[in-house]
């Protein structure tokens, strides 16, 4: 039977090719075909999701094809619990992204959708790759479309932002390339399974780990390497920043959990306290900086730094709760920040400004928009019934267990600091999100908008359509996360067992 | 110190003086003349070093043809507005220092050797031409080709100039 992983990796490329055939002027045809293709890809990935059996923790739907025999590299793909969730997130977000850029992209529309599809291939390929070489190819492949999307369709200061983004990420991935080459020469194979079993000596492990960690830290944006994110987000078009926030940031954390941690266990143990400190700093720093932002998109960008701080904390704590929480938080952040960016995109398309100061009292102008913004903001804060809470709570449980085990050993109270600061992050996230809601939505209507010539129109049915799945998923994961977590728990248990 | 070596020393110093005068000559014409003087001294030196053919050729080709051409061009193109007061470029001192440095470096590299009276090989025209046309015939032909190419080159460079006066 045809291999599904290969299908969903190749299908976006085919879609891109078909799009090239379409006439450039006919926007409607382009938009509809791209939507249909993305939905098709989503259905196939759904088929994988449903057919995935939880009991078997290692790779399923594997596909292997000798790509460069003389180097012994074969193009091998495989999906296990963690990559399954992330692939579903990607294919779930794509139709929404395409739907949200209907009627808004009038410059080079065909190329725009082709780039989106190439991006999708790169993302799915990265998550499905089980060979370091293939992983790196897709990892780099993601840069070019992102560069063009931000560069061409971004807003005014886009060149600076996109060049900075590309150089920053490229710098990181060159270090990784060096490490991959070292690995290839010294270990001989690049398959994830065999790499996992080999234990290098601690010092080389440390250097290799640092090289990999740098590349992924830049992508996750962990604390010191995050300055490209606000610039890239502010300038990217709606679709660009949704994909960037929704999926591309997860590549960094996925890289950590798939490569950095299993391959170099001793180095991870050695650097764990520093990385945990960094991720906790990211939580608090991201949240505090959000308080004083004047640009909505920049605020949401900094908030995703804070959320990914949670993900990294959960990941580095390396117990069942923490890692499951971080995997779920990856999906949650994908949904809530994608929603927020879509909302800001709508606001930007109507009033052409992202400054918070130029909006007030929008709830009276657009009540439906305000309600949806409130729901998604609450999910990003992490209110109990929504998805954000489940992820954050599991990460907190993981952090607490980690510090308790440390406390048994070291008997000083400081070990509980990460858990305490992480939970402080919950207050700060509520603070900056609610002050944003208050400044934009409450109070009397901003006089520039009130007498502005732009007709006040609330959410159209099309816009409501692509928020519906997000809201349904927010409450579904919030109320019944077990359905999703169950898929990944097997793999995570295996990962932690092999790590110990 | 036989008188012969003395002559060598004198001639050597004369060439160096000629060289310096060319360097410091304000007017290009004086430089050309000092160069001519150096060439004549060199021709004498060649003769002393048992290379009469080369000496004669030096005088005929070098000083005769090439230098006269240069002197001719110097007189032809001697434009007025060239400022004679500042003949040197800005980095004079740097260059002199570097050259002096280079001199010192190469001097102590060379092996000290004086040469006694080795058997005199007679560089007369007969031996030279026989040698030239037996095992150096290929180089001889090559030289003629080179000359031909050079002449064509010169004619091309100057060809287009005619009409546009």
């Amino acid at each position: 039977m045809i291999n599904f992983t290969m299908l969903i990796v190749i299908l976006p490329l085919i879609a891109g090719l078909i799009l090239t055939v379409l006439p450039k002027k006919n926007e409607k045809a382009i938009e509809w075909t791209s939507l249909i293709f993305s939905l098709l890809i989503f259905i196939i990935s759904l088929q994988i999701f449903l057919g995935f059996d939880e009991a078997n923790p290692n790779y399923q739907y594997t596909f292997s094809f000798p790509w460069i025999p003389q180097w012994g590299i074969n193009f091998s793909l495989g999906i296990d619990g963690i990559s399954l969730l992330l692939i579903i997130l990607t294919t779930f977000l794509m139709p929404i992204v395409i739907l949200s850029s209907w009627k808004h992209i009038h410059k080079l529309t065909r190329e725009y959708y082709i780039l989106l599809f190439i991006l999708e291939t790169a993302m799915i390929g990265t998550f499905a790759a089980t060979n370091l070489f293939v992983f790196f190819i897709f990892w780099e492949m993601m840069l070019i479309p992102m560069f063009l999307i931000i560069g061409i369709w971004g807003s005014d200061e886009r060149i600076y932002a996109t060049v900075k983004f590309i150089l920053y990420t490229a710098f990181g991935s060159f270090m990784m390339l060096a490490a991959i080459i070292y690995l290839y020469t010294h270990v001989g194979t690049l398959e994830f399974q065999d790499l996992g079993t080999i234990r290098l000596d601690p010092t080389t492990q440390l250097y290799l780990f640092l090289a990999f960690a740098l590349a992924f830290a830049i992508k996750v944006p962990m604390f010191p390497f995050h300055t490209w994110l606000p610039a890239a987000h502010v300038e990217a078009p709606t679709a660009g920043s949704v994909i960037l926030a929704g999926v591309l940031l997860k590549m960094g954390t996925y890289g950590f959990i798939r490569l950095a941690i299993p391959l170099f266990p001793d180095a991870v143990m050695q650097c764990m306290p520093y990385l945990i400190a960094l991720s906790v700093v990211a939580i608090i720093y991201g949240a505090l900086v959000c308080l004083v932002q004047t640009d909505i998109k920049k605020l949401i960008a900094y908030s995703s730094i804070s959320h990914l701080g949670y993900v990294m904390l959960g990941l580095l704590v390396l117990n069942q709760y923490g890692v499951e929480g971080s995997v779920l938080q990856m999906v949650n952040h994908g949904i809530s920040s994608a929603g927020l960016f879509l909302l800001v995109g709508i606001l930007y398309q109507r009033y052409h400004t992202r400054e918070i100061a130029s909006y007030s009292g929008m709830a009276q102008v657009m009540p439906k928009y305000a309600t949806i913004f409130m729901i998604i903001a609450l999910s990003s804060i992490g209110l109990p019934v929504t998805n954000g809470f489940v992820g954050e709570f599991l990460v907190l449980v993981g952090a607490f267990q980690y510090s308790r085990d440390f406390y048994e050993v070291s008997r000083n109270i400081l070990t509980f600091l990460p858990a305490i600061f992480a939970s402080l992050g919950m207050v700060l996230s509520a603070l900056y999100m609610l002050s944003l809601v208050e400044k934009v939505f409450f109070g009397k209507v901003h006089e520039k908008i009130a007498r502005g010539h732009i007709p006040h129109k609330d959410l159209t049915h099309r816009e409501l359509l692509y928020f519906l799945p997000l809201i349904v998923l927010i409450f579904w994961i919030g109320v019944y996360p077990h359905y999703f977590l169950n898929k990944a728990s097997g793999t995570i248990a295996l990962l932690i067992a092999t790590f110990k | 110190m036989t008188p012969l070596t003395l002559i060598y020393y004198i001639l050597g110093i004369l060439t160096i003086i000629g060289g310096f005068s060319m360097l410091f000559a304000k007017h290009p014409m004086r430089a050309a003349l000092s160069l001519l003087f150096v060439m004549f001294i060199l021709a004498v030196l060649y003769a002393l070093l048992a290379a009469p053919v080369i000496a004669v050729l030096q005088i005929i080709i070098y000083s005769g043809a090439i230098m006269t051409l240069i002197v001719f061009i110097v007189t032809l193109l001697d434009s007025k507005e060239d400022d004679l007061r500042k003949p040197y470029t800005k980095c004079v001192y740097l260059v002199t220092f570097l050259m002096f440095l280079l001199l010192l470096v190469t001097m102590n590299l060379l092996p000290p050797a004086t040469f006694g009276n080795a058997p005199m090989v007679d560089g007369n025209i007969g031996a030279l031409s026989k040698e030239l046309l037996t095992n150096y015939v290929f180089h001889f032909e090559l030289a003629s080709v080179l000359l031909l190419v050079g002449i064509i080159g010169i004619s091309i460079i100057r060809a287009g100039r005619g009409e546009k006066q």
Partner: protein
Amino acid sequence: MQTQGLVYILLFPLIGTFINGFLSFFRNDLKTYFKKNFQWSAEKFSYTTNRISAIVGVLAVTLSFLCGVWYFFELLNLSSENALSYTLLRWIHTGALDLEFSFYFDHLSSIMVLVVTGVGSLIHLYSVGYMHGDPGVSRYFAYLNLFIVAMLMLVLGNNLLVMFIGWEGVGLVSYLLISFWYSDIDKAKAGKKAFIVNRMGDVGFVLGALLLFALFNTMNFSELTQSIEQSAVPVGYITCAALLLFFGACGKSAQIPLYVWLPDAMAGPTPVSALIHAATMVTAGVYMVVRLSPLYFAAPYAMNVIAIIGAATALFAATIGLVQKDIKKILAYSTISQLGFMFLACGVGAPIAAIFHLVTHAFFKACLFLGAGSVIHGMGGEQDITRMGGLKHKMPVTFWTFLIAILAISGFPPFSGFMSKDEILVAAFGTEYGSMALGIIAVIAALFTSLYMFRLFYLTFLGDNRSGHKVYEHVHESPGAMTSVLIILAGLAMIGGFIGIPHLFSFLAFPNLIEEWLEPVVISFPLTRHGETLSPLIMLVSVGMAFLGLLIAYIFYGRKNTYAENLRSLFQTTYQLLWHKYFVDEIYHKLIVRPLYFISERILFNTIEKGGIDWSVDFAGRFSKTISRKSLKLQQGDIQYYLLYMIIGLIIMSVVILWWVQ
């Protein structure tokens, strides 16, 4: 015993929320739809939708109340140990963490359910009249029903996490309802302040829950209680967990460190203040402490902390209440002080007294707030009591119900307030954890309670009218829906005390119902021997305090005299201190809010972010540009320079080679 029905209690308000939510979300679309198809005029449409959402709202809560009563009786004839419970759905199952959406309807939570749904349905009825003209009626009822769902989730929760869902849900709805009229930015700010302060408390709650989970590997209440008794976990951990959870309770029930949000929460509509900020939400903290009483009894140090904070809050809030001018602010501070009493009761080991006071407080405080609501409604939005007066004749029903509630809260014998507060005072003096100091503070607070209550009563209802003539003309009694609710609540305030008659009156052969009812579920410390002898004396003291308060209030505010003004001028500084609420808000603002923004603005964003990291990243870009510009000067087109560079290169190479050869 698994009973499916428990879910219905929650289901009805949930359905109400969805219906009202749908009505409010698609209001404009429905309006245009009905205008196009059925030619409904805007007024007709809004009238019908308001009517529908009102009916749906009230119906939902009353149905859930009836369910509660039904299961209360079912619980009645069960054996005392047993309880109804139902597991709906598995929520999180990773490692040892096994959380389900499971509901637990035992003796304690049955009382809470009845209070929440009972008072809730009355307040829903009242708000039909109160919110009559408001455009966002369906949104209002959607939020109110959502509140009931969240509160029931909190009360019925079987483990700490389901309680936490209700805990945060209630915080969210209070945020939504406080800033209900969001077009006024101050109300929105008050709402945000309430949510943030609650959220701070919730952080304490989460950390406490995490610590408990780390210690006992379970979050389920029954398992927790068993494992606390058996396992020999060092007391330090348990005290720490208890204090963290109590910090969460302080946030929710507005105790000393985190009470600042309640007075500002009065910005919301009055029925909201009545329901959320008087009867139900603020009592969540007390319910949690009582529910986890085994945890607190295993940590004596935590008990003392709770008692001290409870007593301190009671006194502190009562003193501020003495001088406030806004009718709702006075009631807010009185709520804080009454909550202080409840926590004092929990602290000294009398949780049953706390729950009893909670129940009676729900009745008379809801009646007071709704009375204040009808006063404000009548006075056309005027909330300042110094500009009221002489409303006795204009609003007779509100007058009488208000009087009954005031008598109840000040602790006059036949009324419910006396019964419950007396229990607490007796416990404060009598039990093992109680002490003379706590008792005295409680007594003084009781005095101040009756003092500021009667001051409020005199200034609003009696004496000559201070509001302008045309306002006074316009004052009218509230419509039937509102006054009927007031009457019911006043009645409850009157007879409410008889469910827990103190032992002294045992000669009346009327059992202390609430004590027997809660006995199996809640551990409480019996009165010490010397406490027994003291209780009649304390009862007399408390009644004396009530009369004393009435007397002082009469002297100062009853008759037209200047005693109040000259007292104020005499103690000018203390008055200013009290009037500005001990400057607590300003201190918080200075110590926490401003430095927070200063740090994040000046230090974090500008210096570290822009100045540090971003600058160094851009520096890499700038540095390469400057280098390339400088190296440009070498190419000046002068041939001799090029030759020179060649020569220099030659020299360097030769030197290196020579040096290398050596």
